[in-house]
């Protein structure tokens, strides 16, 4: 304890702390706007989770086009087969699914998963970091990292409605760019150490309120999310475990995100990232490095399905990566940076059981720059289709604010139930 004369100060501390609680509340004051505005829209209460795979997923291994006569020859040492031990799982007789993903195969059969193949953003270079920035910023090119498209999506919704009043959840100690921006961002990461007492947090909120608006806002948002997590009983869960490049870490992240997004008072939109997809060497086929990662992603799908069960019918989980990998295996039984790849849509809100693809073929002259799977579907058109149907955003708003300069890029229709 401090010297006795401070006791008096402690007493006088109280009103000021109340004031801060008030201020933190004011930041979220619009979260208490009655639901009728939203209810009047008459729609569902949708949930949208974006999963970013950092490092560039090899779409030709995740969803191998075994029916394409050129597939096996390009992929010596890592090609998957449609029969034998560890056979790939059949989707439509042309496309197959990696055998490490039985949950996704089941969801596909149940009509709750759609696979988009030969897809890419508008980015045509091969830098991971620029590619991820383009994917997450939703901008037509590089160099725009002030805000992400999910944040602008939220900011475009009418204030006070069910979705916008909850903020957008960015999972991780460092939130992904796609959620950053002016609209409120909630943060959460799998707990790994003892939480500080709320008294210290409130005193800091007080100090920041007087001295540092940016830190004050960040702390208020953290306090808000922690409140949701506590009400969902997530405070005392297991600590430690693997990172976002392990199956265990992916499952825990998915469970946590599902817990928050599934809460009545939680966010409706979330983004999170899994890592480790940059398989330059020893990528593996039915077993190995990529198979382990795909198994982790598949486990995350199961965790989403379970954690979001009550709202699963209104949920769409979208999985996207910055670009694909070379069509041919490289010199070290892996694949280098490429272009076209796959995206997944999973959830009860998905009109699934389909592979959406305008297949370009795998002959040398059919490849992009004689090297990569040619992209024939723009991931932004897929995202636009999903969010326009889920959240009722108009075409011009989508084409100007959320995905700027995409007026000529029609949203893919009919992806949502």
């Amino acid at each position, binding site marked *: *304890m*401090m010297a006795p004369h401070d006791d008096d*100060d*402690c007493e006088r*501390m109280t009103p000021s702390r109340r004031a801060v609680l008030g201020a933190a509340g004011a930041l979220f004051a619009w979260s208490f706007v009655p639901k009728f505005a939203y209810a009047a829209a008459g729609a569902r209460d949708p949930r949208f989770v974006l999963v970013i795979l*950092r490092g560039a997923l090899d779409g030709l291994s995740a969803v191998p086009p075994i029916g394409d006569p050129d597939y096996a020859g390009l992929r010596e040492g890592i090609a998957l087969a449609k029969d034998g031990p560890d056979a790939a799982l059949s989707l439509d007789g042309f496309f197959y699914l990696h055998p490490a993903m039985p949950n996704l195969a089941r969801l596909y059969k149940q009509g709750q998963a759609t696979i988009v193949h030969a897809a890419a953003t508008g980015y045509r270079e*091969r*830098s*991971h*970091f620029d590619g991820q920035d383009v994917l997450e910023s939703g901008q037509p090119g*590089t160099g725009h*990292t002030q805000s992400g498209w999910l944040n602008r999506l939220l900011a475009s919704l009418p204030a006070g409605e069910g979705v916008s009043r909850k903020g957008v959840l*960015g999972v*991780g*100690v*460092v*939130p992904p760019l796609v959620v*950053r921006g002016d609209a409120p*961002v*909630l*943060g959460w990461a799998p707990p*790994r*150490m*003892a939480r*500080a*007492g709320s*008294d*210290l*947090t409130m*005193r*800091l909120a*007080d*100090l920041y309120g*007087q*001295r*540092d608006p*940016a*830190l004050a806002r*960040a*702390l208020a*948002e*953290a*306090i808000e*999310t*922690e409140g949701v997590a506590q009400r969902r009983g997530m405070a005392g869960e297991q600590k*430690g475990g*693997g990172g976002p*490049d*392990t199956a265990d870490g992916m499952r825990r992240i998915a469970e946590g995100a599902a817990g928050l997004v599934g809460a009545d008072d939680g966010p409706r939109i979330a983004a999170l990232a899994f*890592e480790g997809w*940059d398989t*330059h*060497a020893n990528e593996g086929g039915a077993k190995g490095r990529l198979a382990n990662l795909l198994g982790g992603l598949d486990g995350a799908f199961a965790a989403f399905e379970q954690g979001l069960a009550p709202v699963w019918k209104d949920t769409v989980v979208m999985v996207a990566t910055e670009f694909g990998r070379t069509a041919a295996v*490289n*010199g*070290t039984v*892996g694949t*280098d*940076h490429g272009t076209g790849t796959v995206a997944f849509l999973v959830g009860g809100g998905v009109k699934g059981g389909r592979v959406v693809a305008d297949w370009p073929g795998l002959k040398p002259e059919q490849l992009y*720059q004689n090297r990569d799977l040619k992209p024939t579907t723009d991931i932004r058109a897929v995202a636009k289709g999903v969010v326009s149907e889920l959240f009722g955003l108009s075409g011009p708003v989508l084409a100007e604010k959320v995905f700027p300069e995409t007026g000529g890029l029609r949203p893919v229709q009919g992806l949502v139930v």
Partner: protein
Amino acid sequence: MAGSGELTAGAVALQRFGLGPKPGQGEVFRAQIREKLLAEIAAGGVAQPAGVPFSGTVEIGKALFAFEDQEKREREARRIASATHAQASQQGSPQAMEMVGAAPQAQPAGPQNQMAPAKPPNEPALPYRTYRDEVKSRVDLALAAETGFSERLVMFWSNHFCIGATKSTIGRIMAGAYEREAIRPHVFGRFEDMLIAAESHPAMLDFLDNRQSIGPNSPAGRRQGRGLNENLAREIMELHTLGVSGGYSQGDVTNLARILTGWTMAGRDGRLGFPGSFIFNPGQHEPGVTPLLGRDYAQPDLAQGVAALTDLARQPATAHFIATKLVRHFVADDPTPPLVEALAATFRDSGGDLGAVYRALIGNDAAWMAPATKIRSPQEFMLASYRALGRKPDFGQIIGPVGVMGQPFWQPSGPNGYADSNAAWGSAEGLKTRVDVAAGWGRQAAGSVADPRVLADDILGPLLSPETKQAVARAESKPQAIALLLMSPEFQRR
């Protein structure tokens, strides 16, 4: 006598360019910081950590291969033992080799093996043990450093030329040696020397897969039918030299990969060199003249790659890219063009003399007068906190906090290294995690800090705001007062 404005600038500079003051340092250092920084540049060298387990990669290679052989023998012994004695199999563990990225675990008590080294129970395996000792030694050095400026530069360059300790056993065991061998000797030297040292280090060649990259027309390529891996070549141009918009093409990436074929690590057989050391293997090198960025490289063997890297280091785009990153790191997330141009011009004119570039930074008032907006990275926050508190943390007290805050040593999620912006480190969840960490440090230090109010004055000096001073004074306990000091805006931002 320095005026109050200069003292405030000096107080910011202690945090901006260094690792923050230690108890008793503040008053003197705030008045002399510019002279001290310039003296460090003039001295022109960086200390090496003491007490590291291996002096260099050659020793590490030898130890690592011996360790792997031992593991193999133990696995084999367990397999035989379990086949012959069913009950003995319960003790075996198949996890011995899966510890690359994992926290240390107790070693399984294997069957008796006279080759087994004496190892205390609960001691992690050699790669993690080495990583642990390397982290501890480099943190000790940063805590002992006078201003911490040189150590900040080591951290900057180590992140610029980052490798990853979780990709492989080699990365885990060599991460510390990489920083000692490729980064530290060149921090005040020439950029091209650091570039070549980094790209030829076994840890880098393993991290970005060049070890296995083989020229398709080399003897090995013709024999084995294996070929190029362009990972290292791309990241050299995108992340280490020119920058992503530095004017290279996919063709340049492939050609630089060709030029760098044969840059590899000697294997355990020692046929081409000491096991674990860098070697150039002519049998894997793509023969012939190779163009890069409009120039033809006709040099034989290793000289071809050295010439290509030297030219990349001297490109104007490289000077601009490095200058931008330095200003972003030390001064502001959005670097002001005049300051960047001043550093880039010095870089170009001096042929990449890094000491001259730092002098241009320290000598420029714009670098001093910019408001303290940048939030300290988790590693900086950890080092500044332990310095301020006068504590000597053990390994767990180092790696735990930086791990939860998102910046464990030598483990960025990609070859672009850790982020260097408030958008990354000032997030809601990141800030809340810092509060948790600071609360723990407050509890740890409560016994050794006599009076947090005095410490706040000592460490922050003219930066201490009335509000923070009051918050520290009114804290309900000493641990809370310390946590409030460490989490105050003036301690968090530099």
